Structure formats: C-alpha cells, structure tokens
C-alpha cells in the first residue's frame, strides 16, 4: 500500500480545489450549507451514536453470557437495552443512510448544485445532533428504562427514568428527519438536471424518494405521540392511562403507525444502495428498473397499512388482526420483487468481487432470510407464540443489521473514493466484510431458536437451558464488533495514506462518477445534460471508445 511519499509526489504542482479543501476552519464546517460537507457532518454524528449504541449492545451481550443477572442490576440492564434501542433506531438507523449517502449523492446523481433548501439541511443536522445529545444527556443523568417503544402506562406512570427528556430528544430528532425528507422530496421534484426524467433517475434516488414519503407522512404522528407521553407524565392528563379512562392500546396504534413504516425508513435506503451496487459490479443495466422503482414506492405506501401486526396479542380486535395480517403479507411482494430483480441482474453480468459487492451479496442473503422470517410474524397463529420473544429480536436484527448496516457499509465503501478522494485497502475491506457476515450470523441465528423455545425479549436473567445459544450469540457479537472496528480504522487510515482515487474507479455509470473525486463545491463544472437511461454500460463503453 501507499506511503506518505506518494502524497508528496502528487500534491505540489497544481492543487485541485474541491469541496474538502475549498475552505478551512471549524466554522467552514459547522456553518456550511454544502450538502457534501453536511453529509460528512452526518457521517461523524451517526458514527458517534452507532458507537454508543454498540457499547450498549456489548454490555447487553455480556450480561446474557450467563443465566442469572450477575453483571448488572435489573434496573441497569433495562436501561442498557433501552439505550441501545433508542440510540440505534433514532440516531443511527433513521438518519444514517439518508443523512450521509442521501445528502452526498442526491444532488450529484440528479445533476444539481445542491439540495433545494441548503440552510434547512444544515438545520436538520443540528436538530439531529441536539436531539441525540438530549437523549444522551438523559442517559448520563440516570437513563431510561422503558424500552425504545415507550409503552404506556409504564412510560407515563410507573417508570422513574428520564422519559420526558428522552422523548423530547427523539421529538427534536424527529423534526430533523421530517425536514430531511421534505428537502429530498422537493429536491427530487424541482432540481433535476435537464433531461433527467423520472425514469432516468438512478434507483438510489427512487429509494430516497420513497423514504422521504414515509418520513413526511409518518414522523409527525410519532412526534405528537411522544409529546403526549411527555405531557401525560408532567400533567397527568390520562390520555393513555387506564386509571383515568385512557387506553394503552391507543398508544400502541399511534406509536406503530410511525414505527412500523420507520423500519422502511431504515431499509429502503439500504435497498436503494444495493440496487446501485449490483448493477455497478455486474456492469449491466439493472434488471426490471421500473419494477424496482415502483416497488420502492409500493413499499412506502403499504408500510402504513400494517402497523397492527405488532399488536396481535395486545387485545386488538380479532378482525383488525386479520386485516393487518393480510396487509402485512402484501408488503412482502414488492420486497420479493426487488430480491428477484437483483439476482437476475447478476445473470450474465460481468461480476467483480470488490468489497461493495460482497456487502451487497451479504445484504441480499440476510435480507431475504430476515424478510422470510418476517412472514412468520405476519402469520397470525404463529405470531402469538413468537412475538415478544428473541425470535422478534433476531428477525428485526436480520433486517436492520443484516440489511441496513450491510447496505450502509456497502454504500460507504462504494462511494468512499468519491467522498474522500482516496482508496481504502481492498484486502482489509474484504476481510472486514467476511468477518461482519460471519459474526452477524453467529450472533443472531441462535436467537431464532431461542425465540421459538420461548425466551422472552428484554429479560435480564433467563432459565439455564437457554445458555448455550446465548453464549453462541455473545461470541458472535464479539466477532461482529471486531468486524465493525476494522473499517473504522482503514477509513481513517485511507484519508491520510490512501491512494488517490480516479474520478470513476469502478467504471460505473451515473452522474456522480462524471465529476472529479472529490467533487468541486458546485458539484459539476457545467450543468450536465442527461440523454439516456441509467446504467447504460454499452453506450458508456461506446462513448469512451469514440472519445
């Protein structure tokens, strides 16, 4: 790999000005309205919260190594899993891919100079950060023990944790998410370059568009719900308190109206990334472009009709259960369409096993498995047994960790040369992809078995017969943790020592690869004109040959 000498040879003569070195100083970052710099700010922010969530996870797995609750007090353990859920869901998963990759790429991909509302974009980041730090502040002052779901009346009456502060933190971050979605939606509608019709838009943009729909329509409901929880705690309003005639199940309806679609806020962007990776590394137009694009929007819409499958045993009516069950199955169809189309894209391609593709293939496998186990949860008769057990925990980690994080890391590896202008060491990145894949499966596969055996989730202590599987899970988590540390190291390393990346190191199509790496502040020297379909490798090849 490279040495400092490499940098010395290439830096002196004509230093090219790009968005990273156009201006210097802390203020030039903290007050920036450049979408690319804001993406970097998000990268720092979500990595920070991911690390905190990861520490929580490590402590949870440590406690569960042995059956009795012998490492932490029950109270502490409850705060650990709550902190893990809150940090990961609200401050890593939801802002993650949209904040980092969406911000960086949407204007580049559609040939725009920036998002529609650059200052609003910066405000989103500050809201995200303030929300996250508020939630963290609650943790420092004693933590919350309600679980990330804040079920009433426990959260409103019985918990002595810092529920109000945490709820306010999530509320603030919710507005960050709303404003990001709003910004992206307007950007995609009004800022596309000449010739960039909807059917010429990269699938990443379609995925972000679908995500924006959910962010806009869903997030306000959870915002008001958490506000009501906070108000109820402070003023004893009784809206969700049965002692005053309120109904706790109403809270669940309102909460899941957002929080189920929120799962798709997390996974749709990852799917969007995978669509880009699969086509780039098989050098072929994506199979079924229109179906993948349409399925993203279909998922966004259908995701709002299924929330009641979280409540099959909660005392919801049997008939509501039936309706929610069948609608939940319907979401599986567009997801299946995506998986089949990705697979078909590889067929007769020119497949190159570079790191981003390894992540993409990992995503396809894990998402398929996670999605199929999701069918078990939509099946009424079966869900009664497995809900609120480790089966659920395993299922949603397959989607969120196996899906979203694989997609996020795959995308980060794919666009890192564009973001940083540097190449990371290919050997180590492949190693980390494998370590993560193996560690992940070892962590979460045993939890399916545990769940069907009946181990309930959020248990601090558990019967001895569940220990072997729990030890496997903890061992896997250690491997997974190491897998996540490796990229952290070499990404930092590459910023200083990595080889300079060319403008288009993967030989991919897409406007973002037609501008220098890293891009100049205004993205494109000349506003690009789009003349053809996306992922048109044949034409791209001919143009290269002619030019």
């Amino acid at each position: 790999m490279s040495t400092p000498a490499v940098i010395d040879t290439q830096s002196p003569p004509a230093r090219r000005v790009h968005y990273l070195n156009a201006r210097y100083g802390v203020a030039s970052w903290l007050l920036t309205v450049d979408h690319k710099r804001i993406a970097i700010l998000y990268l720092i922010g979500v990595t920070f919260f991911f690390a905190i969530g990861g520490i929580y996870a490590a402590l949870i797995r440590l406690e569960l190594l042995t059956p009795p609750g012998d490492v932490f007090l029950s109270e502490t353990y409850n705060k650990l899993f709550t902190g893990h859920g809150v940090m990961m869901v609200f401050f890593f998963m939801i802002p993650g891919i949209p904040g980092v990759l969406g911000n960086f790429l949407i204007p580049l991909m559609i040939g725009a100079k920036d998002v529609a509302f650059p200052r609003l974009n910066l405000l989103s980041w500050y809201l995200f950060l303030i929300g996250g730090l508020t939630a963290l502040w609650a943790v420092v002052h004693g933590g919350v023990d309600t679980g990330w779901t804040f079920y009433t009346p426990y959260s409103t009456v019985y918990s002595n944790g810092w529920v109000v502060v945490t709820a306010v933190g999530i509320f603030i971050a919710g507005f960050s998410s709303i404003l990001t979605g709003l910004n992206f939606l307007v950007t995609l509608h009004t800022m596309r370059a000449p010739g960039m019709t909807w059917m010429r838009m990269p699938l990443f943009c379609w995925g972000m568009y679908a995500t924006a729909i959910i962010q806009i329509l869903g997030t306000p409901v959870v915002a008001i719900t958490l506000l009501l929880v906070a108000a109820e705690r402070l003023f004893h309003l009784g809206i969700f308190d049965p002692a005053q005639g309120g109904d706790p199940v109403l809270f669940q309806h309102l909460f899941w109206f957002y929080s189920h679609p929120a799962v798709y806020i997390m996974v749709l962007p990852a799917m969007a990334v995978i669509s880009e990776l699969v086509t780039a590394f098989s050098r072929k137009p994506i199979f079924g472009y229109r179906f993948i694009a349409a399925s993203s929007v279909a998922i966004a819409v259908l995701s709002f009709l299924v929330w009641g499958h979280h409540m099959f045993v909660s005392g919801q009516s049997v008939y509501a259960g039936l309706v929610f069950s069948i609608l939940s199955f319907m979401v599986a169809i567009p997801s299946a369409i995506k998986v089949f189309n990705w697979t078909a894209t590889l067929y007769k391609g020119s497949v190159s096993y570079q790191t981003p593709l390894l992540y993409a293939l990992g995503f396809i496998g894990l998402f398929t498995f996670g999605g199929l186990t999701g069918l078990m949860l939509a099946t009424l008769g079966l869900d009664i047994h497995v809900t609120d057990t480790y089966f659920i925990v395993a299922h949603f980690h397959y989607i969120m960790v196996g899906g979203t994080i694989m997609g996020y890391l795959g995308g980060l590896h794919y666009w890192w040369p564009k973001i940083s202008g540097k190449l990371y060491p290919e050997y180590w990145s492949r190693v980390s992809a494998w370590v993560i894949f193996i560690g992940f499966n070892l962590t979460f596969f045993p939890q399916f078995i545990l769940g069907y055996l009946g181990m309930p989730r959020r248990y601090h202590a558990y019967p001895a017969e569940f220990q072997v599987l729990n030890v496997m899970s903890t061992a896997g988590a250690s491997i997974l943790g190491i897998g996540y540390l490796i990229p952290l190291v070499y990404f930092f390393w590459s910023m200083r020592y990595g080889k300079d990346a060319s403008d288009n190191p993967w030989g991919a199509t897409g406007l973002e690869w037609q501008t220098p790496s890293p891009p100049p502040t205004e993205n494109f020297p000349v506003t690009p004109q789009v003349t053809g379909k996306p992922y048109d490798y044949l034409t791209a090849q001919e143009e290269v040959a002619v030019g």
Partner: protein
Amino acid sequence: MELFPQQASSFAPHVDALYGFLIAVTAFFSLLIGTLVVSFAIRYRRRSPGEIPPVVHESGLLELVWTVIPLGLVLIMFFWGAAVYFRITRPPTGAIEIYVTGKQWMWKIQHGDGHREMNELHVPVGQPVRLTMASEDVIHSFFVPAFRFKRDVVPGRFSIAWFEATKPGRYHLFCAEYCGTRHSGMIGWVYAMKPADYQAWLSGGAAGESLAAAGAKRFQEQACNTCHAEQAGARGPSLVGLFGKTVHLQGGQTVVADEAYLRESITNPQARLVEGYPPIMPTFQGLISEEGLLQLIAYIKSLSPSPAAGAAPPAPSTERKPAKP
C-alpha cells in the same frame, strides 16, 4: 441442548405445523436465492477488466411470475395462520374458569373454588381452561411457551384467553411484555396434571371462600344491592340470570352481557345504559381493585345458571328483561 420447545397444549401441534410450513418456505427461498447469487457470481465473474456484458432485456412475464408465486404463497400462509388464530382465540364452552391478576412483578391466580396461587398455576390435562386476566398496573403478557400460548394483560380491561393442556408436566410461565425493573423475575410454573391428580390437588390445601362468595361480600360492601335489588321498582336492573344474555340498550342497540360489558358497566356505567333505567349509577373506576372486580364478576356469573349451552350467539332474545346496572 433443546432446539425445539415441548408440545403440551391442544394447539401446539397446529402452531408447529404452520411453523414447519413456513420454515420450509423460508429455507427453500433462502437457498434458492443464495444458490443463484453465488452461482451467478462465480459463473459470470469478470474475466477481463474492460469486459462489458450483453444487455439482458427485462421480461414482463418473469416479473409477473415472481409476483404471482409469492402472492399465492402468502395467501396460503394468511389463511392457514388465520385458521390457527381462530382456533386459539375462540374459547370452547364448558371450560374451567381461572382468574389471573398481573402486577409488578407477580402473577396472582384465583380458582373458582377459592384456591389461590402465586406464580404457579395448576391445571388438569384434557380440559379447556379459560383465563380471565386483569392487570393492576402496567401491561403484562401471560406466556406459556410449551402451550404456544400468549396474551397481553392490559390494564383497564379484561383479557380473556384459553388453552387446553395435553401433556402432564411442569412448564415455564413467563411475562412476555416488558413491565419494569424485575420483568425477568415475573416468571413461574404451570403444572399440567392428570385429572385425578388435579382433583387431589384441589381437595388438598385450604380453599378459602369461593370466588363468588367473596364477590357477594363485595356486592354488599359497595352497596350495589341497594339499587340492584330483586324487587319490582328497584333503581337498577336485576342481575339474576344476566350473564350471557342479550341486553337491550337505550337507543335501540343490544349487547351481550359478557365480562367486558359487566366491567364497563361498573367502571363506565353511562357508556351503554340499559333501556328503561336512568343514568344514575356512579362510576366505580379506581374504587374497586382488579381482584375485587374479578370477584364481583364471578359473583354475577354465579347468579346465572351454568352451563353455558344457554350462552349461545347473540340471537335476539324474545324476552325483554331489562338487566343492567
């Protein structure tokens, strides 16, 4: 190390069969996709750096096929799952009545004859058991993995569910809905016993006063009897023979007097008034404990002739006997 839980209830085999089907589907598609992805990746690996593969045109037929096949499969899953669900949610007639109260962090169980248990539940095999459950504080969930049985116990109302144990033994009882600090300590055992052993267990131990008798006492304490008196011109409707009957409400609607309706009539009396009675009953919400409510309801049930063959579906009853607080 066990990999599969015991099957000890009448619906466990049905749930497991469904699970087996879903495992088969999951395994088939995971392997299919996994095999295709890996074999394509190997078969079509990049052989030269500048290689550009031929364009494979999308096929509408193929898209249709892989839309319709999953659709068919999920419909099978839906109907099968719904069938099992109905089996689980519809209690049979002639079940043993057991009353459960969940509170942080214990399960309190009352049998009809006055037997009380804490974090333990004794039931006979081969006979349906119907649980009427209430929570004194937060949401709990009564979960017996070996029975594939789970039901949230939501404060402010009754959660009614049933199971039938099929195999004698001792099984885990868990609280499955997070309920606070000692959530993982809210556990216990369910003992499924042969009928003879169960009778022996019932006859042993001090069985206190029966649940209905305790309810009758509360009926006096709360002065319910001053209005709900068995005489003409009483201010409230008679409760004798009420349970399971169809009640005519003000405004022309009807309702079946089940546990939920009785509970509502005590905690929120104005909600559904019986025809011909003024809205004078005060609410008892917060004045009677959950256990007390269960006792009152057991008492009101005892005023109706058992067995429940009579408690047929809500067919419009010909007699218009006003019956309601």
